Structure formats: structure tokens, C-alpha cells
């Protein structure tokens, strides 16, 4: 009886575990089934590298949106990564433990704020400020990057804190015993030892920034054009899907699924890099 109960529990839990994998698989299969025939029909070159997006006229070039997604993600990293990593180093190595107890939960709270709220702040405060000081329409690469940079901060910070905290104290003690100052021991030993964890935090944050939709639609301006300056408005891949989904039929709808494939591939690659970075860290230990 006991043996049976255990088996039942085992298989029940296994089913639950596989259901998560199965849903990922189903999503992947569905996106590819809807989008791949379209990519074949239009041709990769006319889809990925053409700049004309006009679904009603049969033009499906998503090149400006790929560029836009990369610009915005890169910009967000430029803002979020240094802040997050510097914050993690400070909180782990220099700040009194009390401060960590207050600041860490506060920043993690930031992760719980809905993205539409960030977008709203961007539209009401950031965009008018950019328009007044830097010119352009305000809704721009810069606005999206700043908003996303703040949004990914909790990801970078909390994973980096864990990575730095997992560096054994003997490393620091060894560095200090050799006559290094505290700062030297931090940047020559601790950061190097925590490097793979910090890289993983950045890559996970990139995935988050690339996939964010609502806040970006609100602050990026959604113009389909390759940007030439940070004050230019852009449309990212995610924004394109969300904006046109409601009205798309036929080829236009398939084009959105194909856009989803591109996004899916980019995120898979990023996650793959993150996983191997984390594995690298485990091996070193």
C-alpha cells in the first residue's frame, strides 16, 4: 500500500513536471507551424533584411524592428547593468548588513511593479523631458532604454548579489593577506570569481528587456524606421506583434507569427548563453 502511494505520488508529480515542458513545446510548435510557411513564401531575405513594413500592401520587411529591438535592449543594458553590478558590489562588500536588509527587498519590490506603470511614467514624465531637452518627439530609443534599464535593475542586482555572495570568504582573506587593499581584493579577486554569475544576470536581463512589450509600446513611438539617433522613435519586434495582432488576418497574421519566431530564436540563444555561463560557474567551484 505504501509502495503504491509512493508510486502514485511519483507519477503524479512527473506529469505535473512534464506539463510545463509540454506547454513550452506546444507554444514552440504552434508558432513555427503558423510562421514558418510564411517565411518560406516571402523568403528570408525579404523578411529579415528588407526595411518596408506594409502588411496591407504585401511588404513584410522587419529589419527596422530587429535593429530597434537590439538598440533598445543594448541601451537598457548600458543603463541597467552598471547600476545593478555596482549596486551588488557595494551591498555585498562595502555596505553594513543593515543596509543590505533594507535595500535588497526594496529593489526586488521594483520587479513587482506592473510594466504598464513604468510605461505610464515614461509617457507622462520622461518623454516630455526628452522632447524639451534633446528635441525629437520624446517617444524614442532613449526613453525606452531608460525605462527598460530601470525595469531590469532587480534582475541584474539580485542575481549579481547571489553570485558575489557565493564567492568563498577564503578568497577575500587570501587577497587581503597578500597585501591587497579592500578595493583591489574586490576587483581583482571577488568579481573575477563571480564573473559567470554576473554574466548570467546580464543575459537574463537582456532577455527580459528584449521581451518587454507594454512599456515599450507606450514609450518607443512605434515608427517603423531604422533609427539614426537615440531620440528617434522606433518599433521593436514585440511591439509590432502586440500592435497589429488585433486587426491582422491572412498573410499579415502569419507575418506576426514569423516575427514571433525571430524573437523566440533570439531569446533561446540568449538563454543558452546564460545557461552555459551558469554551468561554467558550477564547474569552477
Amino acid at each position, binding site marked *: 500500500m505504501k509502495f503504491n502511494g509512493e508510486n502514485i505520488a511519483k507519477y503524479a508529480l512527473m506529469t505535473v513536471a512534464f506539463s510545463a515542458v509540454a506547454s513550452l513545446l506546444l507554444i514552440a510548435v504552434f508558432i513555427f507551424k503558423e510562421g514558418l510557411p510564411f517565411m518560406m513564401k516571402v523568403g528570408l531575405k525579404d523578411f529579415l533584411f528588407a526595411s518596408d513594413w506594409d502588411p496591407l500592401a504585401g511588404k513584410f520587411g522587419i529589419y527596422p524592428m530587429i535593429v530597434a529591438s537590439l538598440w533598445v535592449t543594448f541601451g537598457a543594458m548600458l543603463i541597467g547593468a552598471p547600476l545593478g553590478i555596482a549596486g551588488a558590489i557595494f551591498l555585498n562588500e562595502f555596505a553594513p548588513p543593515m543596509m543590505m536588509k533594507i535595500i535588497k527587498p526594496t529593489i526586488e519590490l521594483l520587479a513587482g511593479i506592473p510594466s504598464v506603470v513604468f510605461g505610464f511614467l515614461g509617457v507622462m514624465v520622461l518623454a516630455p523631458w526628452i522632447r524639451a531637452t534633446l528635441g525629437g518627439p520624446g517617444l524614442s530609443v532613449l526613453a525606452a532604454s531608460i525605462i527598460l534599464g530601470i525595469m531590469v535593475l532587480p534582475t541584474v542586482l539580485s542575481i549579481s548579489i547571489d553570485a558575489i555572495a557565493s564567492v568563498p570568504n577564503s578568497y577575500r582573506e587570501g587577497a587581503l593577506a597578500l597585501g591587497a587593499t579592500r578595493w583591489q581584493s574586490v576587483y581583482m579577486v571577488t568579481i573575477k570569481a563571480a564573473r559567470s554569475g554576473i554574466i548570467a544576470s546580464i543575459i537574463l536581463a537582456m532577455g527580459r528587456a528584449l521581451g518587454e512589450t507594454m512599456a515599450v509600446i507606450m514609450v518607443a*513611438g512605434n515608427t517603423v524606421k531604422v533609427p539614426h539617433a537615440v531620440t528617434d522613435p522606433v518599433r521593436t519586434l514585440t511591439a509590432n506583434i502586440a500592435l497589429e495582432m488585433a486587426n491582422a488576418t491572412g498573410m499579415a497574421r502569419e507575418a506576426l507569427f514569423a516575427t514571433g519566431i525571430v524573437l523566440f530564436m533570439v531569446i533561446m540563444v540568449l538563454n543558452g548563453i546564460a545557461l552555459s555561463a551558469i554551468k561554467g560557474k558550477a564547474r569552477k567551484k
Partner: protein
Amino acid sequence: MKIMVALTGVVLCAGFMGLTGCGKSRENVTIAGSTAFQPFAEKLADQYMSTHPGVMITVQGGGSSMGIQSALSGAAEIGMADLVELPPEAASLKSLIVARDGIAVVVNPANKVSSLTYDQVRDVFSGKIKNWKDVGGSDYAIAVISREAGSGTRSSFEKILGGIKLAEDALVQDSNGTIRETVANDQNAIGYVSHGLINEKIKAVSVDGIECMEATIMKGEYRLVRPVFLMAKEGASPACQAFLEYVMSNEAQELLHQSGLIRAK
């Protein structure tokens, strides 16, 4: 305990029977399509159901093209579309103009410009005119704001302006409401919204000297007007026919009028 379980069971069963019984005795009509007309259709449905308890009307969005598709496929009995003219695939449907909606060209209230010609509107939105000083304003770049591709408001607007291709550096917003917010926030912006959505935060410019208001739309003087179509298959159910008749009735037209649309007749 057992009695409780049995009682709960009986109550649940009765509830289910009640529900299914109710579903059978009520006739269902589903309406789908234009998101711009959706809130008005909901009002009409509410009013109709309050006087016709035997009919259940469900209103869904999805967009004008979805409305035509659903009416054709039978996913919905009635499709809604707010387009200047219906696409050829809708020819097999029985269509009815139930209201008219003016499209207002709007700017920020701080903008000096309060009147444009039809040609100027066309050139601004197609990107030929890029500075406010060319249309009598101050020396600032014009920020054109449009709806997304596939929007009924956008395709009607572009068609009325002679099939323009939108300026490629135009900003895109995904609803009438966000266009209004963006124009209210940016002194150099120009956009277009449904006539019913004009408020004190934005300013509607007159086109060819004619203001966008109900009287001018009714008289046919204001040019940027689109019809709202309801479409149903030939031989639709009696409940569906009755609802369409109701929409054209004086009472329903008055409700649409009070909600900010222009009566069909």
C-alpha cells in the same frame, strides 16, 4: 455531514438544470468586429436586452476585418465594420449603415494652427509637409501620430485622403485614447481621432474651413466621415433580424446620437 453533501448535490444539479434550461429558452446573438463601435454596440445590446429578456446578445471586439470574417464564417451572427467601403469579400453579406462617425484632425491646444485645407492634411500625413511654418504655424517639426496598420480608423482616414501612404517617420499609437494623450502632451503633434472623443485637452482643426461637428457632418459638408456597417448573412435568425431592426429604430438611433455618434438617418 452526508445530508449536507446530498443537499449540496441537489442544489448544484438544480442550478445546472436552471442554467442549461435558461440557455435553451434564450436566443443568442453574437456581434463582433470594430473596436471603435464596440462600446456603442454594448450600449445598444444592454438596452435591447432590458426590453427583450428572451434574447442574449454578446458583443466582442476584434477589429473591422475580424468582424467581416466572423460574419462570413458564422462565428458571429452580426459583424461590425467602420470602413469607408466594405472589401469585396463582404459583398455576399447583407450590410446596413447604422451610424456615421466623423474623423477629427486634432492638434495640441497650444498650437497656433486651427485650420488646414484638405490638401494640407493630406500632405502633412503623407510626409510632404514637415514643418508647422509651412501651414501657418511656428517653426517646429510636425510630429505625425497615426493608428496601427489594419485599424479601421486609419484605413478610412487614408482612403478619404485619396489613398495616401503614411509618412514613414510617423509615430504609431494603438488606440484613439492614446492618440489623444500623445497629442495633448506634445505641442507639435497632429493626429486623428473619432469625433466623439474630442475633449478640452486637444483641439480639432477645421478642414477646408469647415469645423468637425455634428451639424457639418450631417449636412455632408465635413469631408472626413466614415460609415459604421453592421453585416449579417442572408437568412439570418429572426432574433438577429429583430435586433438589426431595433438598431435602425428611432430609440436606438437616439442612444447612438447621445453617445457621440451621428445618426444614420
